């Protein structure tokens, strides 16, 4: 029987506290599924930030001069890079979104890795075709083509 004294409280001596090893970020091996999800989250947050900037830019629609000035700015190389990044984010998010829909609605969970590869190839093609104008004008800007 544990005797409680001033020096040694019985509860403490018999029940050392457990250490909590929690938190949303854990070291864990990244496989296809988690990689797909992390990129989905990253592009999703990126697109939300983009939409806020985009809608904020649209407020100049009421003033023709301001609108033209804004559009002129968008021809700068940095916006071409941004345009390409936006395309990558949209295409990835859409293709992985389709993958999740197929998994959740059609029960295609056993094919999730294959889906990631196939839709990834589709995404790469879409990015190559859709991104050609921005990359071309970027190269043209620096005299590379």
């Amino acid at each position, binding site marked *: 029987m544990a005797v409680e004294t001033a020096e040694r409280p019985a509860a403490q001596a018999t029940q050392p506290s457990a250490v*909590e090893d929690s*938190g949303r970020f854990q070291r864990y091996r990244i496989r296809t599924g988690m990689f797909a999800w992390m990129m989905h989250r990253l592009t999703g947050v990126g697109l939300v930030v983009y939409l806020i900037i985009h809608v904020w830019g649209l407020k100049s629609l009421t003033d023709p001069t301001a609108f033209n000035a804004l559009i002129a700015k968008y021809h700068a190389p940095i916006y071409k890079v941004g345009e390409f990044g936006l395309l990558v984010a949209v295409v990835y998010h859409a293709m992985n979104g389709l993958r*999740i829909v197929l998994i959740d609605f059609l029960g295609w969970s056993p094919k999730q890795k294959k889906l990631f590869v196939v839709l990834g190839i589709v995404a790469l093609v879409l990015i190559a075709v859709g991104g050609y104008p921005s990359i071309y004008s970027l190269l043209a800007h620096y005299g590379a083509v």
Partner: protein
Amino acid sequence: MDLTVKIKRYNPEKDDAPHWESYEVPADPLDSALALLLHVKWHIDGTLSLRKSCAHGICGSDAMQINGENKLACSVLVKDLVDDSGETVTFAPLPSAPVIKDLVIDQSRFFEKYRSVKPWLINDTPEPERERPQSPEEHEIIEDATKCIMCGACTHACPSTWADPDYLGPAAMLKAYRYTFDTRDDGTEERLDIVDSPDGLWKCYTIFNCNQACPKEIDITRWLSALKRRAVTSSASTAA
């Protein structure tokens, strides 16, 4: 071969926080990962604490994080661990659970979630004279899900669980699937009331860490998806 075995140690009576310790362990490629830990415990440092019982992948006691991934220590061979990580094998307790000592976690939260989904047959019709029969075809629907040994590898591998300790997690919801899709069970609505919630099905983002971790290779995500579809088509969810 000689392996370096790194173990995340924690003694609540001495340590403020867990720390890594290394041991040199002789091993055969066909040894289980559990054999490495038992070599450390029996021949190097007897103070090492871990849970194990049957050591044959039935009891589900020794789920832990091995080489950065949740596995059942008795069900994984040394040759499959050194293939992809060289001559070092790391052992840590299951992530995002309170650690009691070394590799032993406090499972109370895990089993609370399990109990919360009512993991038993709900059927108020009068008991038949003999058992309630189930055809092989009816059993086929839930067979994969019945293989669960409650080791906790899946739930503690899930980023949704890491971020939200109240998230029911794959293990508990797989049980909900197993009973909801049991043709002898009438508890669909009361069970959906529990899993069709922000801390339930809808925090499953199809990350597939649970499938990857499951030592019984259960396609957990597939059955949770089926449960999601049942939740959106049932009268219980449309009434809410």
